[in-house]
């Protein structure tokens, strides 16, 4: 299965060199060798049927072949050893802390602007900067409760932050479902490892939401707000509501009366305390943001400003994950926390700056250009792979609206074996861990490993033909650990008081 496997001078997650797996992959490698490709294929089909029957799908826009698609699942797991994860975890905690301090500052005192760490024109020119949030008392002073930060590894295997997603990061449902399917079709593979559990994510998310309830009630009313069944991430919205046991609502289910939010039930109106909204800022409240939005709730922002409802994430957090602000995150970490960034950024050219823009326009064939406010792999130019015509078009776009673009050198992402046509081939991957900021910061051990399933492609987004893998973070090795014996000593049978099981 690995006979023709090529490392191609990239950083390969599994192999040091062809035929030589890294220590934490050796158990998987030897098990797969025994298994063979036809048995592996059978499991791939089992997984596909499971995904289809359970309706684990996403929606692709502008695709005539049917709107609902299965997110391609690559059965070969990605494994991260404990020591690597430790670094990632510390780096992510540091980052979300700094990003939250940044939001607090930007929407209040703006110290970071006054001290010229971040240029004010970048903030005021950001589409995602919400003046409506200025001096609003945000519940527990947390803006970014849920963050999905994209990490990549370069040719040397070093981890970099590619971008932060501090608005409404998606994908966590696939992480949990991938794990569940993996356990179902490949239970034997888990035997050789101690993989850290991720199943408590919905519980942690619920605690994070409960923490924000404006009333002191034990049983606050919490709802997930979705744009509806036609949204690409609808599966996830419904999944999270189900896993947390809370209501899934659409804008039309909610109503604001006298600055309180209510949902319409079969028994009349009922108050809502916390809303995990998966609707963008723009569509949240037609009275405050886009007036033509039918997805939101009229008056919601007023209720929020009165402190009668909590919104997660807070409106306006887009200013922290704007791609033109991203280059300043290491400076933020230094400014607010007095620390060096644990996870480095990818070098970034800000087209709004004249010197950077000049360099970008002269070197388009070596750079990746990204629109500062788009996500999902839209509005992007891979300079080294693009045709001259596309590059010219992008040059024109940059000249027209420089604030809207940044550029980065091409990162040669690390590759990982993927099962393609009966054998393994290397495909580029990234990693999106999920960080929750509630009473404390919790990083889910693992995250969404996305795979660029097209050969040679560097774009991993699901909307651009990407797939995903189960991601295993390993437990710390504990030497001399005892095996637990199986006993029935704790069952209350000794004194004969337990009733025997009825039988006939």
């Amino acid at each position: 299965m690995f006979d023709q496997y090529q490392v191609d001078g990239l950083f390969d997650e599994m192999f040091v060199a062809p035929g030589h797996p890294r220590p934490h992959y050796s158990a998987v490698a030897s098990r797969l060798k025994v298994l063979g490709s036809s048995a592996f294929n059978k499991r791939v089909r089992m997984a596909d049927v499971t995904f289809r029957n359970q309706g684990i799908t996403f929606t692709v826009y502008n695709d005539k072949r049917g709107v609902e698609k299965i997110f391609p699942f690559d059965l070969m797991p990605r494994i991260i050893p404990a020591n690597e994860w430790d670094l990632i975890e510390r780096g992510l905690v540091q980052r979300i802390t700094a990003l939250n301090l940044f939001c607090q500052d930007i929407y209040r005192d703006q110290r970071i602007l006054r001290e010229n760490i971040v240029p004010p024109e970048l903030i005021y020119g950001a589409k995602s900067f919400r003046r409506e949030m200025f001096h609003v008392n945000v519940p527990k002073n947390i803006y970014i409760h849920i963050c999905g930060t994209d990490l990549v590894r370069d040719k040397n295997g070093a981890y970099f932050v590619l971008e932060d997603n501090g608005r409404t990061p998606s994908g966590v449902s696939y992480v949990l479902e991938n794990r569940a399917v993996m356990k179902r079709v490949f239970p034997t593979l888990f035997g050789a490892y101690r993989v850290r559990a991720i199943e408590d994510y919905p519980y942690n998310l619920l605690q994070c939401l409960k923490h924000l309830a404006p009333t002191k009630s034990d049983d606050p009313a919490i709802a997930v707000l979705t744009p509806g069944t036609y949204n690409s991430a609808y599966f996830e919205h419904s999944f999270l509501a189900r896993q947390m046991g809370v209501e899934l609502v659409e804008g039309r289910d909610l109503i604001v009366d006298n600055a309180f939010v209510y949902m319409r039930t079969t028994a009349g109106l009922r108050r809502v305390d916390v809303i995990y909204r998966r609707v963008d800022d723009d569509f949240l409240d037609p009275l405050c943001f886009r007036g033509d939005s039918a997805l939101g709730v009229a008056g919601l922002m007023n209720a929020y400003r009165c402190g009668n409802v909590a919104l997660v994430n807070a409106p306006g957090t887009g200013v922290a994950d704007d791609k033109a602000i991203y280059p300043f995150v290491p400076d933020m970490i230094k400014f607010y926390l007095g620390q060096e960034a644990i996870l480095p950024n990818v070098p970034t050219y800000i087209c709004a700056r004249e010197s950077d823009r000049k360099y970008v326009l002269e070197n388009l064939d070596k750079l990746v250009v990204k629109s500062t406010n788009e996500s999902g792999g839209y509005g992007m130019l891979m300079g080294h792979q693009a045709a001259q015509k596309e590059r010219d078009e992008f040059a024109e776009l940059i000249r027209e609206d420089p604030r809207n673009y940044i550029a980065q050198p091409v990162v040669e992402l690390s590759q990982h074996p993927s099962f393609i046509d009966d054998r393994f081939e290397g495909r580029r991957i990234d990693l999106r861990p999920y960080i929750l900021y509630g009473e404390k910061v919790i990083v889910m051990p693992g995250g969404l490993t996305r795979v660029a399933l097209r050969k040679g492609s560097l774009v991993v987004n699901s909307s651009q033909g990407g797939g995903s893998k189960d991601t295993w973070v390993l437990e710390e090795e504990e030497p001399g650990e005892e095996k637990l014996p199986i006993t029935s000593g704790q069952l209350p049978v000794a004194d004969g008081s337990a009733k025997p099981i009825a039988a006939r």
Partner: protein
Amino acid sequence: MSQIPFPTVPKFSASQAARPMMARDADAMFWMSRYVERAEHVARLLLVNSNLLIDVGDLAPKLLQQQWQSVLTIMRTEPATTGEGPARDLGPRIAQYMTFDGDNANSLLTCLSRARENARGIRENISAEMWEAINTLYWSIRSDDAPARFEESPDDFYRQVMTGSMLFQGLTDHTLAHDQRWLFTQLAKYLERIDVTCRVIETKFSILQSAGGQMEAALRNIQWMAVLRSCCSIEAYRRHYLGEMDPLRVASFLILERSFPRSVRYAVDMAHEATAAIRNETGTLSIDPAERVLGRLNAQLEYAEPSEILKEGVPAYVQKIQSEIADAGLAVQKRYFLY
């Protein structure tokens, strides 16, 4: 491993008040359940009809046409839409139209798509088991190999749909709390059952009675058995009347039998109970129109005599029930779903 501390004074009560239900969710719950029940009836009608035609062999073309026509009449579907063609492939054409045609509002495909689409909108309200059952059922008719499986054995194909529906209903009863959400599924299921059963009785009685004395006794018996089969009632009926085939007995069994879950009387009782329980759960004091309609109908059937049905005429009797059921359905929508 550390022990989880057990609180000495529980912070919650065992009899916590039921959580209210979103009006839109109740709406979707109702229609999900109703479409599953409808799909099961359509599958059974088509299955019984195909088998019936095998049993009676070479029927006269007119009778053949009548039989297939009755499926369309029962499902209130326009016959013209099945297209032109020779009489002998009328059966396959109607079967195809009632199974796979996405433009036909009552085809199996449409029923199951709508059931699943409603379920998809309320996945957080139903159990994972229910969702997987309904999604699998949907894919069994929607997948690329479905037409081939149908060609190979329509019998197996329809049985799979019926079993899928029953599995879904069983899971609904045993994986969902019997609160408001469940009550709406029950109400919908029984309203649909009453409705289809009444239409089967109405249509078949009209056809068989108009045929009058022209039909041979053997053929006639097979026809009455097919009516019972269409309502999933043949075995229960046989036990009850020791196999005696008689139109009035068939009608009174299907309409008045109190203990059989496929009879109109039983379903009305259940639907009535569900409306009363929903009123109780939503804390409403006044009886809503749906409960009133169903309660009256329940009392009427409780005290009805077979002779009354005969006097009024079977088709007319069940037509009245249908219009009352329609009123009840509208009243439920108005009271609980319109927001």
